C-alpha cells in the first residue's frame, strides 16, 4: 500500500474563518473533482483527533498512503481549548489511482481554539458524509467518557501504545521499555467498551504474534498442550505485555502464577505445556534487528517445526487500513484489556 502516487488538485487555506466558509470552499473543490475525474466511492468519514499540528500532518500523510483505496474524506481536528476562540482551516483535494481508475478525496484540517475545542461533535457533523460510518481516530490519549465526539462516532480508534508514551510504529520496535501502562490509559479505553466499538492499533500490530501462536498450537499433535500448561511468558514493552498477557490470561484460563511478564525491547511469547508427559514448547519471537518473526513448536521426542514470517510494513497506514476494515466490537480485545488490568 505504501508508495502510492497522489497529486494535489486544489487547496484552500482560511485563517480565522467560519464553518460556513470552509464548507463552501470544500464544495467548490468537490465540484472540481467531479468535473475532472471519474468516480469516487465513499466508505466512511475518518475524523482524526490530533494533539498538535505536526501530528495532524503526519496523520494526513498516513491516510494518503492508502492511495486509491480510500475512505473518501478525512477531517483532522487540532483542538486548542485554552486559546481565544478562533477557527483556522485548510481544505485540499487529492487524486490517486486504483486499478486504473482515478479516484479523488478531500482532506479538511481544522485548528480550533477556545470553547468550541471542547464541543467537537457539533463541528464535525456538517463535514461528515451522509449515511456512512464516522470513525474517530485519537492520535493522543484515549477520549474521556464525556467527549462529545465519541457520541457522534460509530467507532473509535486508539493506540494504547502511543497513549502510554511509547514511540515507534511497531510493538516490537526499539524504544523505551517502559513500565506497565498507567491504569488511567487502559481504564479510559475500558470506559468506552459497551458504548462504541474500540479498535486499538497496538492490538492490531500485535496480530501477527497472536496469529502465529494460535497456528502453533493448532491441530491434534499440539493442541493437547493447552490443557496442561506449565508457564506462559510474555516479553516486550508495556503495551505489548499488557495486551498479550491479558490475551493469554483471558483465553487460556491460566493457573495462578504461570504468567510471567518481562520488560524487553522486543515482543515475544512462550508457552510451555505437557502432552502425555512430554514437554511441549511454543514460542513466537521477533528476530533482533529484522522485521521477521520466528515461530517454533517442539514436542519432546515428537514433531517440531520452525516458521519464519515477515512482519507487515512498519508504515502506520498498514495498521490503520486493517483497523478501518473491521470496525466492530472485539470481545477478545475487550477481555484482553480487562484481564491485562486485573
Amino acid at each position, binding site marked *: 500500500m505504501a508508495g502510492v502516487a497522489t497529486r494535489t488538485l486544489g487547496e484552500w487555506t482560511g485563517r480565522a474563518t467560519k464553518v460556513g466558509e470552509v464548507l463552501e470552499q470544500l464544495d467548490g473543490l468537490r465540484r472540481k473533482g467531479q468535473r475532472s475525474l*471519474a*468516480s*469516487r*466511492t465513499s*466508505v466512511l468519514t475518518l475524523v482524526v483527533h490530533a494533539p498538535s499540528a505536526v501530528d495532524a500532518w503526519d496523520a494526513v500523510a498516513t491516510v494518503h498512503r*492508502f492511495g*486509491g*483505496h*480510500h*475512505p473518501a474524506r478525512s477531517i483532522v481536528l487540532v483542538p486548542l481549548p485554552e486559546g481565544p476562540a478562533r477557527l483556522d482551516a485548510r481544505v485540499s483535494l487529492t487524486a490517486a489511482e*486504483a*486499478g*486504473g*481508475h482515478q*479516484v479523488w478525496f478531500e482532506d479538511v484540517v481544522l485548528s480550533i481554539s477556545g470553547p468550541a475545542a471542547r464541543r467537537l461533535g457539533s463541528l464535525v457533523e456538517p463535514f461528515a458524509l451522509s449515511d456512512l460510518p464516522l470513525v474517530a481516530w485519537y492520535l493522543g490519549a484515549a477520549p474521556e467518557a464525556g467527549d462529545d465526539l465519541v457520541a457522534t462516532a460509530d467507532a473509535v480508534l486508539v493506540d494504547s501504545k502511543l497513549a502510554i508514551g511509547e514511540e515507534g510504529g511497531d510493538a516490537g520496535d526499539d524504544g523505551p521499555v517502559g513500565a506497565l501502562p498507567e491504569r488511567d490509559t487502559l481504564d479510559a479505553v475500558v470506559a468506552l467498551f459497551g458504548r462504541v466499538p474500540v479498535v486499538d492499533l497496538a492490538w492490531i500490530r500485535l*496480530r*501477527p504474534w*497472536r*496469529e*502465529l*501462536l*494460535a*497456528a*502453533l*498450537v*493448532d*491441530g*491434534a*499433535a*499440539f*493442541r*493437547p498442550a*493447552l*490443557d496442561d500448561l506449565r508457564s506462559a511468558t510474555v516479553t516486550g514493552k508495556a503495551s505489548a505485555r499488557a495486551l498479550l498477557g491479558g490475551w493469554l490470561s483471558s*483465553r*487460556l484460563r491460566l493457573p495462578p502464577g504461570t504468567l510471567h511478564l518481562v520488560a524487553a525491547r522486543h515482543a515475544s511469547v512462550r508457552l510451555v505445556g505437557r502432552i502425555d508427559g512430554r514437554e511441549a514448547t511454543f514460542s513466537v519471537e521477533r528476530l533482533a534487528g*529484522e522485521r*521477521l518473526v520466528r*515461530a517454533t*513448536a517442539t*514436542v519432546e521426542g*515428537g*514433531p*517440531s*517445526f*520452525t*516458521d*519464519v*514470517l*515477515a512482519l507487515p510494513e512498519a508504515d502506520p497506514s498498514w495498521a490503520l*487500513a486493517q483497523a*478501518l*476494515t473491521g470496525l466492530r466490537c*472485539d*470481545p*477478545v*480485545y475487550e477481555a484482553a484489556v480487562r484481564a491485562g488490568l486485573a
Partner: protein
Amino acid sequence: MHDNPLLEGLDRDRRAPPCVLVVYGASGDLTSRKIMPAIERLHRQRQLPGAFAVVGTARTEMDDDDFQKACLRSVPDAAAGWDELVKGFRYVAGDYTATETFDRLKEVLAEVDEQRGTSGNRVHYLATVPSLFDDIARALGREGMHEPRFDGSFVRIVCEKPYGRDLASARELDDAMHSAFAEDQIYRIDHYLGKETVQNTLALRFANSFFEPLWSRQHIDHVQVTVAESVGVGTRAGFYETAGALRDIVQNHVLQVLAVCAMEPPATLDATGVRDEKVKALRAIRPWDPVDVVDHVVRAQYDSGWAEGEQVKGYRSEQGVDPSSTTETYVALKLEIDNWRWAGVPFYVRTGKRLPKRVTEVAFTLKAVPHLPFTTRDSRGLSPNALVLRIQPDEGITLRFGAKVPGGSFEVRDVLMDFSYGASFLQDTPDAYERLLLDAMVGDPTLFIRTDEVEQAWQICDPILEAWNDPSYPVATYEAGSWGPKEADLLLQRDGRRWRTP
C-alpha cells in the same frame, strides 16, 4: 478434537488446519505458475498453519532438494520465510500406475506427520493432465489413501477442469473418482468461481432490495454474457485443437456464472444452499435438440487481422493447428431458461479468442419503459436501462440509465454510473487459486463444482457437440480483432436485438 481458544477472533474459518498438500504433476506448469505462488501468499498472510508441508509427486526424476529449489524458483518475489517453509517440502518421483509410487508416497506422508505434526490431514491436488485423473484416483482408493489416517483427520481431493470432454467421459471420470472418494471429499475447481465475482453477485442480489425485484422476466428483456479474450491460441494449439471454445469456456466458466446470475435465492449461503440452487438453474436451461442447434448456436474461427495494434494470423495458419480444422475459437449461443422467473428471457452467450479486448461481463438489459413522454428527437440518445456485472478486468457494476441533458430543452440521454470494487475497499482481492486452495484446506466446498452440476452442464453442451459432428455444420469466420462473425450478429438481429459493445 478440542477447540483452539487462541483462534477466537482471528478469522478462524479463513485459516487452514494442519495438513499436507499432495501435488500430483508437481513438476508441471500449473504447480509452478499457480499453486506455489498461491501457497506463498497464504503463508505470507499467515493463513497457513505451522504444521504444513507440500509433498510433490510426478514422473520427473528429482530429489527433495531439487523440488525445493524448483519451489523457490516458482516464487521469485517471495516474502521472507518462504525458504524456511519450503525446507519441509518433499518429493516422490514415480509413475502413477506403479504401486511402488504410492507405497513410497505413503511412507513420506507418514514421515511428514511424525516430523511436522500434520496429523494425517491430506489435500490431494491433481495438477496433472486430465487423462491421469482416473489412474490417480483409483490408485489412491486401492492403496487406502482415500481414508483418514487417524480418527478426526481428513482426506480431500482437488481436481482441475476440464472435467471430461462430454457427458459420457465426465461420467467415466466421476465413476473413477467415486470408486475411492465420497462426493463430499471431491473439490472440482473452476477458477472463475474463485474470483470474487460469484460472492459479489450473491451479495448484490441477496443483500440488496434494489435489484432482486427487477431480476426476472417481469423487468428484464434479455441477458448477454460475454467472455472475450484478445489473445489467440498461442502455444496451446495442441490442447485447443481437441477442446475449442465450447469445452474450454462455455461448459464450465460461462455456465457457472450464468447459474449464479439466474438461480433462485438460496436459504443459506453454505455449499448445499448455493449448489442446490445453481444446479436447479442449470437444469432449467433447455438443451437444444441437435437438429435445432444450427438456429441457436454459431461457431466460428478467427481469420487474420489486426489485434491490439499487431497484424496476426488466422487460426488455421497458427502453428500446431490443422489447416482444415473445424475447432471453434468463438461460439455464440442463445439459451432459454424454462422456469417461472426466466421463461421468455433469452440469455445470449458469446466467447472467443482474438476479440478486441479481454473482458468478461454479464449485462442485464431491462425492458423499455411502457411509454416515453418525450419527443423522438429529445429521447434519441436513450437506450433501455441496463445493469452490467463487470467480472474482469475491472471488477464492478455499471448501471445505465437516462438523465436530462442540462439546458432549456428536455433532451434525455444515457449516463453510466460506475462502481468499482478496487476503489471502494481498503483490502486487495485474493487471487482465485489462493482462495480455492484455502477453501479446500479449510473444507468449504461452496465455490467448487458438484458432480450434478458437471453433468447438467454437459447435458446442455452435448447436443451442440453432436450437431457439430456433422461435417456440413458451418464454421463461420471473423476477422481477428473484431467482435465476432456476422452470423452471430444475425442470431440477435432475428430477435430484434444486437450485441453490446463492452
